[in-house]
């Protein structure tokens, strides 16, 4: 079990967060660069001392500023993968993996044996004698993982483990990494800026926004109910605040939003509601649509962004602020002849809008 409560200031930047994760689970910290993700990892690893806070892991108190308890990184049962893995360039793969064992007092021979066994477990035996400079990015990542795991950490910290990889290898490595992490008995804290990775890896996801946890939950909960516009944007959703204009028969509700009137079906009570529209539920047209069952927002095309990996779909960002995003096929976009500055109409069904208080 990991329980951490951290407060730390770095110049103007202030970090204040509480984290909790169960053994065998992965907690993903997702946020934009500058949101404090790496700082949290460095605090957990003991590479940075918090101004105030407490870290408990695996039944031990690693840090408690109240009682001045402090364990150095060396003492913590922690495994830490920095963004670029930091494999020692002067050591072979085998010696990289054995490094921590030798450092913690195991004999050279024992260390080599244990390191070799770990390499075998991760299917890296063939690379044992190579230097890090002779490895691909994905191989380096797996070696770094082996180097950390051979010490049997209670807490594994991964800082953007996929970001150093090129797009082609990322997919395969991602699958491989998920399989490895699923089998681990330890707590894993995984930091990423990519919502997609957060969804894939996170048993729980904590969204970091400017040093604070904006929202915590599992992937479905976050997708269903993003709490702030930031979380919604991060997850690629449209989020609009709305005020109830009137409630009709059944669950039909009319909401006044910054972009116009929206009709939806909602059971939520209250006057102020958030409404969420997934971009793939939005249709674009050059003329106002005739079907009356649809909500319609007029807008101006601001940007057209191809979606990774192959750009078969594009995200069309509509102004003016607050912007509204539609996701359509590249083909459709092309057929409509969409360009920046063009007036278009975005429409979506009442049933594809989620609202909550």
């Amino acid at each position, binding site marked *: 079990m990991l329980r951490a409560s951290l407060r730390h200031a*770095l110049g103007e*930047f202030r970090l204040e967060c509480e984290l909790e994760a169960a053994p065998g689970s992965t907690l993903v910290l997702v*946020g*934009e*660069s*500058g*949101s*404090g*993700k*790496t*700082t949290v990892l*460095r605090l957990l*690893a*003991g*590479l940075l001392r918090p101004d105030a806070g407490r870290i408990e892991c695996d039944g031990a108190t690693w840090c408690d500023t109240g009682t001045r308890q402090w364990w*150095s*990184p*060396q003492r*913590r049962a*922690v*495994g*830490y993968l*920095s*963004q*670029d*893995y*930091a*494999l*020692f*360039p*002067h050591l072979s793969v085998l010696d990289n993996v054995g*490094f*921590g064992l*030798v*450092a*913690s007092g195991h004999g050279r021979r024992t260390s080599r044996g244990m390191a070799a066994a770990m390499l075998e477990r991760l299917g890296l035996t063939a690379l044992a004698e190579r*230097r*890090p*400079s002779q490895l*691909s*990015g994905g191989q*380096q990542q797996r070696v770094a993982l082996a*180097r*950390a795991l051979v*010490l049997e950490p209670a807490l594994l910290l991964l800082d953007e483990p996929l970001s*150093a990889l090129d797009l082609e290898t990322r997919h395969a490595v991602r699958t491989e990494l998920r399989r490895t992490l699923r089998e681990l008995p330890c707590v894993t804290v995984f930091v990423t*800026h990519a919502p997609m990775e957060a969804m894939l890896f996170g048993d729980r996801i904590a969204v970091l926004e400017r040093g604070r946890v904006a929202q915590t939950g599992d992937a479905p909960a976050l997708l269903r109910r993003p709490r702030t516009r930031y979380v919604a944007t991060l997850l690629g959703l449209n989020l609009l605040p709305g005020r109830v204009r009137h409630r009709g028969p059944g669950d039909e509700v009319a909401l006044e939003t910054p972009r116009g009137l929206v009709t939806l079906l909602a059971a939520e009570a209250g006057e102020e509601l958030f409404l969420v529209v997934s971009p793939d539920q939005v249709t674009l047209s050059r003329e106002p649509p005739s079907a009356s069952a649809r909500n319609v927002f007029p807008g101006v095309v601001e940007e057209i962004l191809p979606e990774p990996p192959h750009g078969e779909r594009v995200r069309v960002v509509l102004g003016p602020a607050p912007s509204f995003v539609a996701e359509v096929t590249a083909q459709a976009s092309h057929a409509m002849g969409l360009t920046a500055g063009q007036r278009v109409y975005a429409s979506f069904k009442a049933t594809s809008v989620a609202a909550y208080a």
Partner: protein
Amino acid sequence: MIAASSPRWREPLGRALMLGLAALVAALVALPVVALVLRVPPGTLLAQLGNPSVQEALRLSLTTSVAAALVSVVIGLPMAHLLATRAFPGKRVLEILMDLPMVIPPTVAGFALLMAFGRAGLLGGTLTAFGISLPFTTAGVVLAQVFMAVPFFVGAARAGFSAVDPRYLDAAATLRAGEMHTFWRVRLPLALPSLVAGLGMAWARALGEFGATITFAGNLAGVTRTVPLDVYLLLHEDLEAAATLSLLLIVMAAVLLAGMRQAGLGLFAPPRAPRFAPPRAG
């Protein structure tokens, strides 16, 4: 289009000036060496190598300078590490102190060494009590050379230690490595090219040392008369022999510098991928 704001001739003129000055400095260094080579009658280099007194000076120079370089490494490493890794009060003063021998005139250095380690110097009584006498001895030559050479090693080693990517140190810390283990297994090997360069510089400086040696250790054949001192003596007796011996010293130094460069670059290739970006918050 924005028009070039400076006149068209400025660019080529500036470039010509740079080239000219570069040529000037190359000539400044190369010309004396060439002049020396011209002064050495063909065949005398080998003949001088057969001269017992030259052999004696050469042997002495080689042994003392190698010893001085090794001593510089042993006593310089901890200082370099300290300066590269720690912040402490008085660090500035220590840094200046470590650079001082590079700017003190060597003769002054020799005099200062006498004041400290001479028989009547500050530590003279203590040293004598232990039966140690440094002036007029080969050990004194080594001491003078170490004094002049150690800053070169400390400077290079310190730069090397400082240049080690902090990510490797973070990795080592989370892999249970204490400060000493990290020093021996991470910092030292990663800084090795700089250390080798520093060793070479220190050795070259010791090899060429003249002023501090003659002032502190004196000048006696076979004991303290190294090659530079021998050259100085020969200058008043036999200019051809002096030129030959000088050339020998220059060749040795040049070979050393070239070898060092080769070794420093070839120790191990820098990591290809991943590339290490500066750490960022987030």
